């Protein structure tokens, strides 16, 4: 005699089918989905309206002036200004930050993650670096004014683009260190073991395995830091960026940068009779800044893909 009768079996089947096919509306999860959707929509809408406004505002600056908006110099008439000094300044700051903050930041991260002992002093140092990442930019401006414009005047020649690059490099340094440390921490222990296991020294393991593996993460942090450095205006105000007249661009003379121009031009009244007002010029400068950041980002992404391909050994 069978243990399970046919009728029992079919009853179980019906029961199971009901239990696992029932369409239950679970209210909390629906509510959560809706909330998340609203959050995403809101963010995207804000971004697009911002972009749309900048682009429409910037159109007159580009359509009327064309390339001379990029190559012209700053001045007091909105329909005659160009952003060349700002472009030069921002580009120089970008390169300066890359040359200063990236090697210093990666070096500090390697030391803290691979070499430093996990003791109280080093934990204290790391906590402070994290805090530094949150210090307002204007404070770094004060620091830059005192150290790079004042004390280091023989090197920087005062309020120059060199002083600005140094100040902004210090500003983004904590971000570079922290993101690099996180990337290095994510390197699998087994990879280090493998290197040590064949007699590689700590430096050889770091150079050959840890840094290449962490490189994509380090680059992500670098790109973020660079974007931040290019967008800051407050420290530049402290250092003394120019917004009036700047006929000559050089590394050792007076300087300005795009965020500085945007800040200055946005505050001027739109009353000159021409087709281009200050708001159009400011929007044009904003668009150029976005493009500049985008260019640096694209380079960063290409490099990251290159290192990621290396990471799987191809």
């Amino acid at each position, binding site marked *: 005699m069978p243990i399970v009768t046919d009728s029992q079996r079919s009853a179980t089947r019906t029961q199971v089918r009901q239990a696992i096919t029932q369409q239950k509306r679970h209210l909390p999860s629906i509510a959560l989905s809706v909330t998340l959707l609203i959050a995403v929509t809101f963010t995207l809408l804000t971004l697009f309206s911002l972009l749309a406004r900048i682009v429409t505002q910037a159109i007159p600056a580009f359509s009327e002036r064309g390339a001379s908006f990029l190559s012209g110099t700053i001045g007091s008439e909105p329909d005659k200004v160009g952003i060349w000094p700002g472009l030069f300044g921002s580009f120089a700051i970008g390169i300066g930050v890359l040359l200063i903050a990236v090697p210093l930041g990666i070096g500090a991260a390697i030391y803290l993650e691979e070499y430093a*002992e*996990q*003791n109280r002093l080093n934990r204290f140092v790391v906590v402070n670096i994290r805090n530094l990442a949150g210090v307002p930019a204007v404070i770094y401006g004060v620091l830059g004014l005192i150290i790079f414009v004042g004390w280091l005047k023989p090197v920087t020649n005062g309020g120059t683009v060199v002083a600005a690059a140094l100040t902004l490099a210090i500003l983004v340094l904590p971000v570079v260190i922290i993101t690099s440390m996180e990337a290095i921490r994510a390197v*699998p222990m*087994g*990879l*280090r*073991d*493998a*290197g*040590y*296991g*064949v*007699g*590689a*020294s700590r430096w*050889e393991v770091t150079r*050959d*395995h840890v840094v290449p*593996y962490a490189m994509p993460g380090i680059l992500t942090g670098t790109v973020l830091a660079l974007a931040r450095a290019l967008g800051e205006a407050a420290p530049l105000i402290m250092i003394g960026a120019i917004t009036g007249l700047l006929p000559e661009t050089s590394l050792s003379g007076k300087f300005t940068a795009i965020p500085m121009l945007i800040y200055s031009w946005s505050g001027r009244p739109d009353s000159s009779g021409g087709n281009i007002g200050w708001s159009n010029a400011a929007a044009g400068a904003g668009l150029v800044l976005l493009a500049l950041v985008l260019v640096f980002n694209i380079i960063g992404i290409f490099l990251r893909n290159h290192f990621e391909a*290396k*990471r*799987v*050994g*191809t």
Partner: protein
Amino acid sequence: MSTSDSPQESGALGVGADVSTSLAQEQQTKSDSIDLPIFAVRDLSVKYGEFRAVRDVTLDISEHEITAFIGPSGCGKTTVLRCLNRMNDFIDSAKVEGRIDYHGVDLYHEDVNPNEVRRRIGMVFQKPNPFPKSIFDNVAYGPRLTGGMSKADLNDLVERSLRRAALWDEVKDRLKASALGLSGGQQQRLCIARCIAVEPDVILMDEPCSALDPIATARIEDLMQEIKKDYTIIIVTHNMQQAARVSDRTAFFTTEMNTESDRRTGVLVEYDTTNKMFSVPSDERTEAYVTGRFG
């Protein structure tokens, strides 16, 4: 500074032939004794911070044999293994007490270069960990560190190492392909080839087959038998059958309560030829473990 065979230098290191000879004499009374141990471990204790992971381990390792460390989880067998090539150096909190002599040289003497130690005492890990590089570059990495090799010699060495690791026929046509594309068993054999390529003296294996299927495991075990005439192998394993199959000597570790903390500390219970350990163990804990009544 590297390890040295000259008696004068080893004397200067505060070690000497006297240490190992006296140990050898002590062992003479037992049968199957180890005349000239490659490793002489004395009263080895390892602490991680305040926690004592393993204590008072004393054993000799014989050359050109396979020695197995067995025991339940947390008994300190991997910890002891990693002391033998100073891999514990990288754990800040780890503190090694006692003494390990390698060819009569105190491994933890300040004049010893740990990188050189690890070049001579290679290691294969629990999880296959090939570098994210090509198969060729994986094997060539160690030799390239030392440098001074012609391209032809390097090609030769890579082929020889892969052949010894019984992997050559499977990978000879794709040496430039990523090592990460290999199966788990192939990856582990690649790690063995990488280890062999630096021409070490000892190979430490930390549960090398625990991530592998039985067929891949059998291949690794065959490989161990094949290469043991050239190398001294010490293997940590959870698998008693594996220890019984491959090893010449077996050390059984277990954990015991201690007064310092509520975590258990590893101790060496018994160490003898594998034959004796699995047939007539002298400690009842060993017997309980090898017969599967515990652990």
